[in-house]
C-alpha cells in the first residue's frame, strides 16, 4: 500500500508523455527539411509556367517566337511594345483588349452585386421569417446546384431573343424591335447580368443562409419585440453582421464571372460591345496562335485583375472556399 501511495506523486517525474514526445519532436524536426525541400520544389514547378507567360510577354517578337523564354536570362531584352499593341490594337492584331477589359468590369461587378443582394434577402426569409414551406424551399434551392449551366443555356438564349410565353401569359416579353431581327437586349450587358445572377443564386443562398441562420436569436427577438419590421432588421442588423460572409462570396463571384467563358460566349458573342476579356483571349488564341508575344501580353492583362484581387483579399477568399466545401 505504502509503495503504491508513494509511487503516485512520483508519476509526473517519469512522465511518459514527455519521454515519448522528445524523440517524436526530434523526428519531426529531422523530417521537416525534407518536407521543406519537396514543398519548395513543387512551389517552383507550380510557378514556372506563369513566370514563362510573364517573361514571354515582355520579349521582342523575334526573340519570343524563335527561342525559349528561359534563354531570356542569357539574353535579356525587354520591350513594352507587345503590351501597347495588345492594349490599343496594332498591325498584327487590329483590335485591342481595352474595350473587352472595361466590359469585364461592367459585367463582373453588377453580376456579383445582384445575386448577393437577392441571395441575402432570400437567406434572411428562409432563416428568420420561417413559414410552413421554408425548409422545403431551402432544400430545393440547395439541390438546384446540381443542374449544370449547360442545361439552361439554350432555353435562356431563346427567352432573351424571342421572349417566353406560358400559354397566353407573357412571362418574358419579346423585345424584338419591329422589323428587325435583333432583340433590344442584344448588345447590352443585361442578358449576361441576368444569366450570371440566376446561376449564382443556389450556392450564394445556401452559403449566406448558413451564416445568417447562426446570428444570435435573442438579437432578432429583441428587435421584433421593439416593433422593428423585417425590412428594418434586415438593413440594420442582418446586413452589417453578415459582412464577412458577404465579402467572401462577393470576391468568389467576382472572380468566377471575370474568368467565365461559357456564359460570355453564349450571351455576348465576341463583339467588343459587350464581350469580356476571356472571349477576346479565346479569340486571339484561335486566330493569332503563333504570335506568342502578343497572346501572352493579352493573357497577362486579363489575369492581372484576378491576381490582384486574390493576393489582396486572400483571407476572405479562403474563408469563402472553406465555408463552401467543409460545411457543405
Amino acid at each position, binding site marked *: 500500500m505504502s509503495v503504491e501511495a508513494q509511487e503516485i506523486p512520483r508519476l509526473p517525474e517519469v512522465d511518459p508523455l514527455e519521454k515519448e514526445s522528445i524523440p517524436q519532436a526530434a523526428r519531426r524536426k529531422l523530417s521537416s527539411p525534407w518536407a521543406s525541400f519537396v514543398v519548395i520544389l513543387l512551389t517552383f514547378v507550380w510557378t514556372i509556367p*506563369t513566370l*514563362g507567360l510573364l517573361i514571354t510577354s515582355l520579349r521582342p517578337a523575334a526573340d519570343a517566337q524563335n527561342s525559349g523564354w528561359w534563354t531570356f536570362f542569357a539574353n535579356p531584352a525587354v520591350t513594352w511594345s507587345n503590351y501597347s499593341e495588345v492594349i490599343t490594337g496594332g498591325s498584327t492584331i487590329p483590335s485591342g483588349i481595352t474595350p473587352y477589359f472595361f466590359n469585364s468590369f461592367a459585367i463582373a461587378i453588377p453580376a456579383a452585386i445582384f445575386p448577393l443582394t437577392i441571395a441575402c434577402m432570400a437567406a434572411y426569409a428562409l432563416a428568420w421569417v420561417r413559414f410552413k414551406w421554408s425548409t422545403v424551399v431551402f432544400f430545393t434551392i440547395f439541390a438546384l446546384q446540381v443542374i449544370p449551366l449547360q*442545361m439552361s443555356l439554350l432555353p435562356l438564349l431563346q427567352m432573351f431573343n424571342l421572349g417566353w410565353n406560358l400559354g397566353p401569359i407573357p412571362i418574358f416579353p419579346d423585345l424584338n424591335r419591329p422589323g428587325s431581327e435583333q432583340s433590344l437586349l442584344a448588345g447590352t450587358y443585361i442578358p449576361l447580368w441576368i444569366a450570371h445572377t440566376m446561376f449564382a443564386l443556389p450556392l450564394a443562398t445556401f452559403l449566406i443562409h448558413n451564416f445568417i441562420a447562426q446570428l444570435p436569436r435573442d438579437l432578432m427577438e429583441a428587435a421584433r419585440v421593439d416593433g422593428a419590421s423585417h425590412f428594418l432588421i434586415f438593413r440594420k442588423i442582418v446586413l452589417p453582421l453578415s459582412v464577412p460572409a458577404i465579402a467572401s462570396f462577393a470576391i468568389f463571384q467576382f472572380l468566377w464571372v471575370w474568368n467565365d467563358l461559357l456564359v460570355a460566349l453564349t450571351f455576348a458573342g465576341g463583339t467588343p460591345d459587350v464581350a469580356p476579356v476571356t472571349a477576346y483571349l479565346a479569340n486571339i*488564341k484561335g486566330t493569332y496562335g503563333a504570335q506568342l508575344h502578343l497572346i501572352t501580353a493579352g493573357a497577362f492583362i486579363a489575369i492581372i485583375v484576378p491576381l490582384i484581387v486574390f493576393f489582396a483579399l486572400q483571407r476572405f477568399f479562403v474563408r469563402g472556399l472553406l465555408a463552401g466545401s467543409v460545411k457543405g
Partner: protein
Amino acid sequence: MEELLTGLEKLWSGFLGVAVFGLLIALLFFIGSRLRGRLSRPAAIVIFLGPAVILLIMGLIVPAFRTIWASTQNSSGKEFVGWANYQWIFDSQVDIIVNSILWIVITPIAATALGLTLALLLDRMRREAIAKSLIFMPMAISFVGASIIWSLVYEYRAPDKPQVGLLSQIVMWLGVDDPPKWLLWQPFNNYLLMVIMVWIQVGFAMVVLSAAIKAIPGDVVEAAELDGATGWRLFSKVTIPMIRATLIVVVTTIMFAVLKIFDIVRVMTNGNFGTQIVANEMYAQAFVQFDIGRGSALAVVLFVAVIPLIIFNVVQLRKDRATR
C-alpha cells in the same frame, strides 16, 4: 483617348445597372415596410424570397425541363424524334464519353492526392504562407488564361530548331532527340490537357485539406503516437479517417468542376485530335452547328452524370455523420 471614353461609358452602364437594381430593391422595401398588421408577414416573405424564387424558376427549373424536352426533338427543335439524339451520342460519340469519363476519374483523384501530399508536408513546415499562396494562385486564373500559359509549355518546334516549349526542351535535355507534337500526340494529349486542370485545382484541394488536418484535435494525434502509431500507420489509421468527409467533398467538388469544363479543351485543341469531351461537344452542337436536339441531349447527359455523384456524396456524408 477615345477608347478611354468608350471605356468610361461601359463602366457608366454598369453603374446604371446597379443603380436601377438598387432602386427596385429600395422600392420593394419601401412598399413592404409600409404594410402593417396581418399583411406584413406574407408581404415580407414575398418580397424577400420572391426575386430569388422567380429567377430560379425562370433560369434553372423551367430551362431544365425545356432542355429535356428539346433533347427529343430534331435539329431545329420542331419535330419529335424520340431517342434518336441519344442513339446518336451512344453510337457515334463513344470516344467523347470515354474521354469525359477519363477526365472525371483521373483529374479529381490526381489533384486531391497532390493536394493532400502538400497539405501534409506543409503541416510540418514553419513558413508555409508563401508556398501556399503560390500553389493556390492558379485558382484565381481563368481557364482561358491557364490554357495560354500551358500552350507555352506544350509549344512544338522541329527538333533542329531552338525550342520554345518548355516541355520539349526539358525532354530534350533529358536525352530525347525527337519530342512529339504534344497536343497532337494521341491519346496522351488528353492527359496533357488534364495536367492544366490539376495545376489549377491542387491549390483548392491543398487549402481545404490543410484546414481539415489542422482541425484534427491534438490529443487524438498524441494518443495515437503514444500507442506507437507513426508515419504511414498514423496517416492511414488516424489522419485519413479524421478528414474523410472533407476528402469526399474535395473530390466531388473537383468532379463537378471537371464535368462542366469546356474552356480548356476549347482553347487548346477545340476538341480536335481525339480530345473532345461532352461539355465542349455540347457547345459545338448547340451554338456552332445550331443542332438544338443534339446539343440538348448532350446537356442532359451531363446532368444525368451528376446525379450518381451527388447521391454518392450524400450517402458518404450521412455515413460519416452516423459514425461520429
